[in-house]
């Protein structure tokens, strides 16, 4: 039933039978949307031991009550499915920005369940209430850019589209679903869609989101934009001094990188200077983030056309480039991405990189080539593990051992030595098309470890850019280096990299430590917030912060709002003492849905999603390994976390290494905060029943893994 905020129904599309139906989703609204609805649906409909790419496997593409409602930074969409590459093959999510999520909402749906398998290549066309499965045989085989263009031409310019690339079609575990703009959902959703012969989706929605209190929504918007929002990652002080600001990020490495003298050099009509962007001046927010300069330094400006971004977001974190040096190699010059694909292409050049035209431009140009290829082929990087593992393979010379000689010799190494941008494109192509032994890299970190007999020590090693934060096949995503035990804890919780930015948004903001500390201790109490590389032993308030960040992420992927921006923990406003407003998410939920949300009640609903995640993880580890506990299996921490920087002891000023015993204490405290059994790390019956998840408690009991 339609209510404020929620569209009130979900679509179900069966690719085997062609059946397309709608279902009332009122009973799912307590799970908020997106991730929360996805977990409930998959738990109910897809047994956790289902092979991830079996015809019986399903995925849920979901948005939430705030998506498309006009709330700042609410253009996200979440996709829930079973992992094909991480240990346990458990539940996980892919996430994407852009404009397609809001279109789904405007078409009148809170989500789409896709099930079954088509006999031939197809795409899903959603035109408000006209939903169809269309022939995609002409699009199959195309890269995502061409595929999206063809879908747009077939459906109309006002459709938003997303497509998988060759990696998805070839069922490469590291594969994505991409929009025409380069927004991508990863984690292997491309392969799942490919296994169902589903090339993409095109959506046009001409409706709207019904708002309970329009006046309040407008007031909250104005308040957020004027007093709370900063730049990308909600960094609250500028990277270089501006006359209105008391503070700036001394290291210069912060995302409020727009500054006087910094320009979009290739802007249409001539260069545009970013100037100053004072707090409160809402018309200049979009000039605050000059992501290209954050990524590469001033040298990037030469190729910047403008900053783009997602629906309802004033931040614009996607730098759009025109890199003419790439034309010399017959590679596309127009490129845009804001995340990992545009940062680490140099990892494909283990012999080092050379500049093209200007000093320091090698990274810019190589990443332009690499990110375009990666997006077009629809390859996922597992938050950089793909790059790190290729780099390690070359530097350790293991590549000569694991690749057949003929394959090794077929790799155009002269391009690597000459810093030719076609080298990264060629490596990506081989991975996307599953060509040769090298393509094992695209099957995932666990596949690499097992197939090449690398053993546990490979994930324990201190060297080689090893970032594996568990033994489950994914790296840390802002962990101990930003927030010690807190970051470590929430990095342990998922079945992929955690993608939680609650803490790095504060530690990386560039604000003075004492300023941020006062803000954080105002919210969570004394001792909750350490200075960077000057960590203190674990305490209860740190556990509370970890819980807040963990549950908060679930809200963001269910609401849906962007976790790179939310929550509004800090503010650029001196008058506010640089404190943000942690009630704002609940205030927006109340204004949009009319439900009387408070910060506490919203955190409770978000925690319900965390509990479901934990239950499903426990079931899959039990199914796959017979594990009766998660603490020492799923949540085990590799040795490098404790053994790096041998010249330091943990808690000494200058190190980010952690202490084993202290980290065990951190787990104790966190499990207690979450209502989990301390010995096993599995939710107790009392906890699950508190969240109205009695059926899951019964299920755990039946399997013999419910804590006594």
């Amino acid at each position: 039933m339609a209510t404020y905020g929620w569209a009130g129904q979900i679509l179900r599309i069966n690719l085997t039978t062609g059946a397309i139906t709608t279902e009332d989703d009122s009973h799912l609204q307590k799970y908020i949307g997106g991730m929360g609805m996805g977990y409930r649906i998959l738990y109910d409909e897809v047994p956790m031991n289902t092979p991830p790419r079996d015809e019986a496997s399903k995925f849920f593409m979901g948005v939430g009550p705030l998506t498309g409602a006009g709330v700042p930074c609410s253009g996200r969409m979440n996709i829930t499915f079973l992992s094909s590459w991480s240990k346990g093959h458990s539940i996980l999510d892919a996430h994407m920005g852009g404009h397609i999520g809001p279109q789904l909402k405007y078409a009148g749906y809170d989500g789409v369940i896709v099930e079954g398998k088509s006999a031939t290549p197809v795409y899903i066309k959603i035109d408000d209430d006209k939903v169809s499965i269309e022939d995609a045989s002409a699009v199959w085989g195309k890269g995502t850019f061409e595929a999206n263009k063809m879908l747009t031409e077939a459906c109309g310019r006002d459709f938003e589209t997303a497509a998988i690339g060759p990696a998805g079609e070839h069922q490469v575990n590291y594969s994505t679903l991409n929009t025409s703009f380069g927004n991508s959902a990863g984690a292997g959703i491309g392969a799942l869609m490919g296994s169902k012969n589903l090339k993409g989706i095109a959506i046009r929605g001409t409706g709207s989101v019904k708002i309970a209190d329009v006046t309040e929504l407008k007031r909250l918007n104005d308040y957020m934009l004027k007093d709370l929002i900063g730049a990308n990652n909600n960094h609250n002080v500028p990277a270089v001094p501006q006359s209105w600001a008391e503070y700036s990020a001394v290291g210069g490495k912060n995302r409020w990188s727009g500054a006087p003298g910094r320009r979009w050099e290739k802007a249409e009509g001539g260069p545009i200077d970013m100037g100053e962007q004072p707090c409160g001046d809402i018309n200049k927010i979009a000039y605050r983030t000059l992501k290209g300069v954050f990524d590469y330094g001033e040298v990037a400006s030469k190729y910047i056309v403008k900053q783009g971004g997602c629906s309802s977001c004033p931040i614009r974190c996607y730098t759009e480039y025109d890199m003419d040096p790439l034309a010399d190699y017959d590679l596309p010059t127009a490129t845009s991405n804001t995340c990992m694909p545009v940062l680490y292409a140099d990892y494909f050049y283990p012999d080092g990189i050379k500049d093209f035209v200007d000093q320091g431009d090698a990274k810019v140009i190589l990443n332009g080539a690499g990110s375009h290829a990666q997006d077009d082929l629809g390859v996922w990087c597992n938050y950089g593990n793909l790059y790190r593992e290729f780099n390690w393979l070359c530097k350790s010379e293991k590549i000569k051992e694991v690749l057949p000689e003929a394959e090794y010799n077929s790799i155009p190494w002269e391009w690597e030595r000459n810093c030719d941008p076609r080298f990264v494109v060629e490596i990506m192509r081989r991975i996307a098309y599953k060509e040769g032994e090298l393509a094992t890299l695209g099957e995932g970190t666990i596949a690499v470890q097992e197939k090449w007999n690398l053993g546990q020590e490979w994930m324990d090693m201190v060297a080689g850019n090893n970032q594996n934060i568990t033994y489950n096949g994914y790296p840390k995503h802002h962990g101990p280096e930003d927030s010690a035990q807190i970051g470590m804890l929430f990095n342990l919780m998922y079945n992929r990299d955690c993608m939680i930015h609650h803490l790095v948004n504060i530690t990386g903001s560039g604000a003075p430590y004492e300023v941020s500390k006062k803000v954080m201790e105002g919210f969570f109490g004394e001792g909750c917030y350490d200075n960077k590389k000057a960590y203190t032993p674990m305490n209860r308030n740190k556990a509370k912060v970890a819980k807040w960040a963990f549950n908060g992420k679930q809200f963001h992927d269910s609401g849906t709002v962007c976790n790179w921006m939310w929550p509004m923990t800090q503010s650029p406003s001196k008058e506010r003492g640089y404190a943000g407003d942690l009630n704002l998410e609940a205030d927006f939920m109340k204004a949009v849905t009319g439900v009387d949300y408070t910060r506490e009640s919203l955190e409770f609903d978000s925690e319900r999603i965390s509990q479901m995640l934990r239950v499903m993880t426990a079931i899959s580890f039990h199914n796959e390994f017979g594990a009766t506990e998660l603490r020492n299996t799923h949540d085990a921490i590799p040795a490098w976390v404790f053994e790096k920087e041998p010249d330091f002891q943990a808690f000494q000023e200058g190190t980010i290494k952690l202490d084993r015993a202290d980290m065990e204490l951190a787990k104790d405290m966190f499990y207690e905060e979450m209502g989990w059994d301390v010995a096993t790390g599995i939710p107790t019956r009392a906890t699950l029943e508190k969240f109205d998840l009695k059926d899951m408690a019964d299920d755990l009991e039946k399997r013999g893994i419910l804590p006594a």
Partner: protein
Amino acid sequence: MLFGRKKPGFVKEEEVQGGVIKEGASASIDKDGVITVHDETQDGTDKEDLLDFLAEQPDAEDPYAGTTALEEAMEAAEEALEQKKEMTRAQQLAQFIRSRSQGAHLTAYQMLKTEDPEIDTLLAELQEDETCGDIVSVKGSRDHYYYSNGNMSDNYAMIAMYVEEKDLVVTIAQMVRFNCKTYPAPTPMRYFENHPYFYTETQIERALDLMKEREEYKDIRQITNSAGVRYLFSDTCMTPVYAKALCEPDEFTD
């Protein structure tokens, strides 16, 4: 139907039939494949020039006449002028300082003195005037500089003062100490290449050479991180070990 979706007319779709020739016309194709359409329905007169046609049209009525941005700005300027007439000279001076602060400029006492020999009297009046409470000053080694703390932050005024005095040795040393103490953070040398310093690499190197020769700057130390980026820190505020750790690039960012 939910939420009034499918509003009539929201999306207009027109079907275009390529290759269809209208009634009364014919087409021929030459050996190169070029198609020529012969339309007998046209009356043979030349098509009217668009610009000529538009020039003949009467001017459209501007429904927003009187409320253009330019006119609004002009009205505001006139209003400001009227207000200025009613201001005391001290208030006018305050307004002048405010406008310069808004443009990220300090207002130097010596410059005011050159403009108006009676400036001391005006400044004394300004300090007594409650409406000018936002006008404050920062003292450099060569001059006093006025600014509005409503338009410029105190820390930026300090930076702007150093920039104004053009003593790079003092500027670099003092800002390195300030950053070490306040954030705490070592300062990359390229920090001084950005707004509002805009020093060149050569200027910075020269200043550092001079600094080495003077006892009062012996706390300022240089450090190079693993990526080859050079930093400065004050060893009175930060240990070398901690400074080195903070200089290192972030492991992975995004």
